[in-house]
C-alpha cells in the first residue's frame, strides 16, 4: 500500500511538473555567446528576441505595417519636423513613466555608442522636448523613410538614469530597465528568466554554447529557433514554421595582411573556392549565393551574378602560396555541423590550416584583423530587408573584416540612405556593389532564405509567422 501511494505521489508530481512546464513557463533555447541587451552593440537575433520582450520603441514594424508602441501619436508638423507624443500608459519595468528625457537619452546613447546602423543620426538634427509627454524630431531635411528606419529593432528606449550608469558600467546591461512587457527576473550564465509585467507567460531563455540543439533535447523546450539536428521523429510534438528571414554567409579576406593586400591574390583565392560542396552539405536549406545581397533584400539584382567578371578572369589562376592559413569564423554564423566543411573547402587550397572561432559579433572585424587571420566566415542578416544593413560593414570598423577603408565608398553608402525612392536606392546599392565586387574583399557563399521555428503544438502562438521571429512579442503566447 505504501508503495502504491509513493508511486501515485510520484506520478502526481511528474504530471504536475510537466503541466507546469507546459503551461506556466515558456522555455526557449538561445545561442549564449551572442546574447547582448546593449543596443549599442551589434545584436544578433537571440539578443534582439530578448530585447524585444524587455524593451519598447517609439514605433515598431510588423510585416511592413508600422504601429505605435511607446508613442501615442506621430504628427508631421512640417516635412522636417515630426511631433511625437508619448503614451502615458506605458511604464518602465521599475514602474516609472516614460519621459521625453528618457527618449532623448536613449537616442543619444545609441548615437554615441553604436558604430553601425547610424543612418538615423545623420538625418536627425536635434530632438526638442516640448512638454512632459511630447518631443519634436527636427530633421536636417525631409526623410520619408525615417519612421520605417526608426521601427527597426535598434532603437530601444531606456531610463535615463540607467543609461547614465551604463556609460560607466557595462555589466549593468544584464539588468536593463526597459519599457517592454517583460522584466528580467534573473540573468545567469545559463539562463535569462523574464517575468511578465502585465500579461503573458514567464519566459526562460536557456543559453547554449552551441547554436544548434539535438532533437532528443527538444522535450525541454517550447519554442526553438536554433538548428535542430538528429531524429526528426522527436519533433512530432512541434509545429514547424519556415519564416522568410534570409541570411547570407560570406568569406572575407584580411586585406591588411599579405598576400591579401594584392587585389589579384584576393580575386584568385575567392574565384577558386569550391562553394558547391558546402551547398550540398546544407541539403536544400541553403542555396548558392549569386549576389552580394540575398534575394528579397532591397538592392538585390536578379539579373547580375556577383563577381562573375572576376570569376571568368581568375578561375583556375594560381592562388598565392602560403605555409599556414588561418581561417576564422563567427561562431553564431556557422553551425557546428558545417564548420568542418568550410574548413575542407579552404584546406583543398591550403592544406595547412587552422581555425579560429570568434564569438563576439559586436566587434568580430576588429578581432579578426588583430588575430592576423587570413580569411573569416561570417553571416549577415537584415532586420528590415534593406541592403544598407549589409553595406554598413564598410562604414563600421568593428565589423569590417577586410580592413578596407575607402572614404568615397563610405560616402556613397551613407548618401544612399538619403535616397527616398526605393527603386533609386536599390539602384544605388547595386552601383555600390558593382564597385565592391572588383575589390575582391569578400564573396557571398550561401544564402539561407528561411529560418525554421519549432513551436510546441500545445501552445497558441498567434501571428508568430507574420514577421521576423526576433520581432515576435512572446507575451501573446498562451
Amino acid at each position, binding site marked *: 500500500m505504501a508503495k502504491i501511494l509513493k508511486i501515485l505521489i510520484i506520478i502526481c508530481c511528474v504530471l504536475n511538473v510537466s503541466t507546469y512546464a507546459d503551461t506556466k513557463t515558456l522555455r526557449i533555447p538561445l545561442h549564449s555567446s551572442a546574447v547582448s541587451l546593449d543596443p549599442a552593440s551589434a545584436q544578433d537575433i537571440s539578443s534582439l528576441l530578448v530585447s524585444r520582450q524587455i524593451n519598447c520603441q517609439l514605433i515598431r*514594424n510588423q*510585416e*511592413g*505595417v508600422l504601429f505605435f508602441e511607446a508613442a501615442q501619436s506621430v504628427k508631421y508638423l512640417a516635412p522636417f519636423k515630426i511631433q511625437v507624443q508619448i503614451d502615458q500608459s506605458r511604464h518602465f519595468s521599475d514602474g516609472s513613466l516614460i519621459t521625453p528625457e528618457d527618449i532623448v537619452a536613449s537616442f543619444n546613447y545609441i548615437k554615441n555608442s553604436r558604430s553601425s546602423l547610424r543612418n538615423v543620426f545623420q538625418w536627425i538634427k536635434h530632438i526638442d522636448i516640448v512638454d512632459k509627454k511630447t518631443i519634436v524630431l527636427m530633421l536636417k531635411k525631409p526623410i520619408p523613410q525615417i519612421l*520605417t528606419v526608426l521601427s527597426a529593432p535598434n532603437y530601444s528606449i531606456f531610463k535615463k538614469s540607467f543609461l547614465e550608469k551604463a556609460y560607466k558600467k557595462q555589466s549593468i546591461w544584464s539588468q536593463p530597465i526597459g519599457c517592454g512587457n517583460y522584466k528580467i527576473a534573473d540573468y545567469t550564465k545559463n539562463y535569462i528568466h523574464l517575468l511578465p509585467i502585465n500579461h503573458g507567460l514567464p519566459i526562460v531563455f536557456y543559453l547554449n554554447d552551441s547554436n544548434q540543439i539535438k532533437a532528443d533535447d527538444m522535450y525541454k523546450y517550447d519554442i526553438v529557433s536554433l538548428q535542430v539536428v538528429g531524429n526528426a521523429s522527436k519533433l512530432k510534438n512541434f*509545429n514547424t*514554421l*519556415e*519564416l*522568410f528571414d*534570409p541570411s547570407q554567409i560570406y568569406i572575407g579576406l584580411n586585406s591588411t595582411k599579405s598576400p591579401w593586400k594584392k587585389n589579384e591574390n584576393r580575386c584568385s583565392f575567392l574565384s577558386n573556392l569550391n562553394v558547391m560542396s558546402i551547398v550540398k552539405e546544407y541539403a536544400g536549406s541553403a*542555396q548558392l549565393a549569386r549576389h552580394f*545581397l540575398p*534575394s*528579397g*533584400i*532591397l*538592392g*538585390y539584382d*536578379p*539579373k547580375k551574378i556577383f563577381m562573375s567578371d572576376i570569376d571568368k578572369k581568375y578561375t583556375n589562376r594560381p592562388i598565392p602560396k602560403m605555409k599556414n592559413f588561418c581561417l576564422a569564423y563567427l561562431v553564431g554564423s556557422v553551425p557546428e555541423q558545417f564548420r568542418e566543411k568550410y574548413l575542407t573547402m579552404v584546406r583543398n587550397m591550403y592544406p595547412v590550416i587552422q581555425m579560429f572561432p570568434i564569438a563576439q559579433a559586436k566587434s568580430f572585424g576588429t578581432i579578426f584583423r588583430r588575430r592576423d587571420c587570413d580569411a573569416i566566415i561570417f553571416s549577415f542578416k537584415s532586420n*528590415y*530587408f*534593406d541592403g544598407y544593413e549589409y553595406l554598413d560593414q564598410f562604414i563600421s570598423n568593428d565589423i569590417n573584416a577586410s580592413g578596407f577603408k575607402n572614404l568615397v565608398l563610405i560616402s556613397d553608402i551613407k548618401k544612399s540612405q538619403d535616397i527616398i525612392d*526605393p*527603386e533609386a536606392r*536599390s*539602384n544605388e546599392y547595386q552601383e555600390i556593389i558593382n564597385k565592391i565586387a572588383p575589390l575582391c574583399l569578400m564573396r557571398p557563399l550561401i544564402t539561407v*532564405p*528561411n529560418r525554421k521555428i519549432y513551436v510546441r503544438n500545445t501552445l497558441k502562438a498567434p*501571428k*508568430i*509567422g*507574420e514577421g521576423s521571429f526576433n520581432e515576435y512579442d512572446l507575451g501573446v503566447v498562451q
Partner: protein
Amino acid sequence: MKTQTIRYVIERSFVVACSSILIIMIVAAISFNHNHFQAIRQSSLNEIHDMLSHLLIPELSISNTVEVKRLLKLASTDGKIFSIIDVHGNIFIPDYTKIKLLKMIFHPDFIENSCEELHDIYKHVNGDKYLVNCTSLYDDSLGGHNQNLGALISFSQQRWSYFSSLMAYFALVGFMILLLLFMWFRSILQKKLLKPLLVLENVISQSTNAENSGVFFEKMGIAPVEIITIKNAFENMMYKLQTEHKQRLEIEKKTVLLELAAHVAHDIRSPLAVMEMELANKKKDKTESNHTVLRAAIQQVRDIANNLLSRYRHVTPDQEPQEVIQDDGNHHCSLLFYNLLEGSVLNKIQEWCNDTIQLNLHASEMAKYFEIHAAPAKIRSILSNLFNNAYEACNGTGKIQVNLEINNHFLQLNILDHGVGIPFDSIPDVLAGKSLKHSGNGLGLSTAKKYVESLGGELSIFSKHGEGTNVMLSFPAVKECKTNIICGLEN
C-alpha cells in the same frame, strides 16, 4: 375509410404549398446568393490579382520585401491569403503558419508555366475546399526585359456564402408574390368551388327539405358546370323519388281497402247464411229461439259494419297503413269468455241444424268464470271463422269437439275436428294467411292468430292429414268473474 372535408383539404394543401414554396424560395435564394457571391468573389479576386500584380512587380523587381509583404498583408483580408513564390523559391506570405497549406495547394517545385493553369480552380486539401488563383509576375518595364519574377498566388477557403440583403430581398419578394398568387387561387377555390360544394352538401344532407332546395341553391352563386350538373341530377332524382313515394302511398292505401273489403265479405258470409236459413224457415217455425238466432246473426253483421266504419274513421289518407288487428275498431273490455263461446257454439248449432255434424262444448267449471280482455265482436268473429273452418274440414258430417279449460292463468280453447286435416308442410302457410280451400289468401286463421297474439295469447294448430285438426287458442285470464255477467254483449 378516412374522410376529410374539402375545406380541410384546401387549407392543408395551402399550408403545404406555402411551406414548400418558402423552402424552395430559400433554397433558390441561397443558391442564387452562393453563385452571386462566387461570381463576385472571383471577379473581385481577379481584379485584386491584376491590381496587386501591378503594385508588386516594381517592388519585387528591386527586392523591396518590406513593401511586398506590406502589400500582401493589406490584400490578405476576408479569409483570402495572398502570397508570392519568387523565382528563387522564396515564399512571401503574410502568415507563415499557412506556409504548409500553401505548399499543399501549390506544389513547392515552382514551374514557370504551371501558374496560369491555376486560375479560378478549386483544390481540396485536408477535406477543405480552396479557391486558388495564380498570376505570373513578369517585369515588363523598360529595363525588365519581361523577366519572370515569380507567381502571385491567392487561396481562400470555400465557406458557405455570406447572407446578403439581396438574398433576403429575393426570398422575401418571391415568397410574397407566390403567397399573393396562392391567396388569390385560394379565394377562387373558396368562392367558385368550396362555397357551391358546401351548399350542395347542405342541401343533400337535409334532403327532407328538398322542396326548399331552390332557395339554398340560390346561395351558390356562380358555380362550376360540374357542380351545376350534380345539382340538376339531384333535383331530378328528388323529383322522381317524391313522385314514386306518392304513387306507393296510393297503392298501399288501395291494398288496405281491398283487404278490408275481403275481410268484410268473409265475415258477413256466416251471419248472412244464418239469416238466409232463418228466412227459409220463417214460415214453418216462429219460435222465440229462432228470433234470437236471427237477431244474433243481424248483430254479427252490424258488428262487422261498425268495425268497418270505425276503421274508416280512424284511417286517414295521410296516415301510413296500419295493421288491421292493431286497430280493431271496437272497445276492448273484460268479458266472460265462456258466455261468448257458448253463444257462438249455439249459433253454429242452430246454423248447422240441418246437417249431421255434432258440435259439442265442454268447459271445466273453473274456466267458465274467467274473463279475458278483448273486443267481443272480434272474438265472436274469430270463433265463428274457426268453427266454419272445422265444419268445412268435416264436410258437414262428423263431430267437432270444443273444450275450454283454465291452465296456469290462461284460458285454453281447443277446437278439435276429425276432418281432412292440414298437411304438415302447409301449416306455416295457413298461419301466414294462405288458403287451402281456394287459390289466394285465406283470412280466418291468420287474422285470428294475429289478434290472439295481440292480446298476449297464442294460436297453434296440431293437425294430421286425413285424421283431423286441433286448433288451440290460449288467452291470458284477466280475472275470475263471480257475478256471471257477460260484458260487452248487448244481448
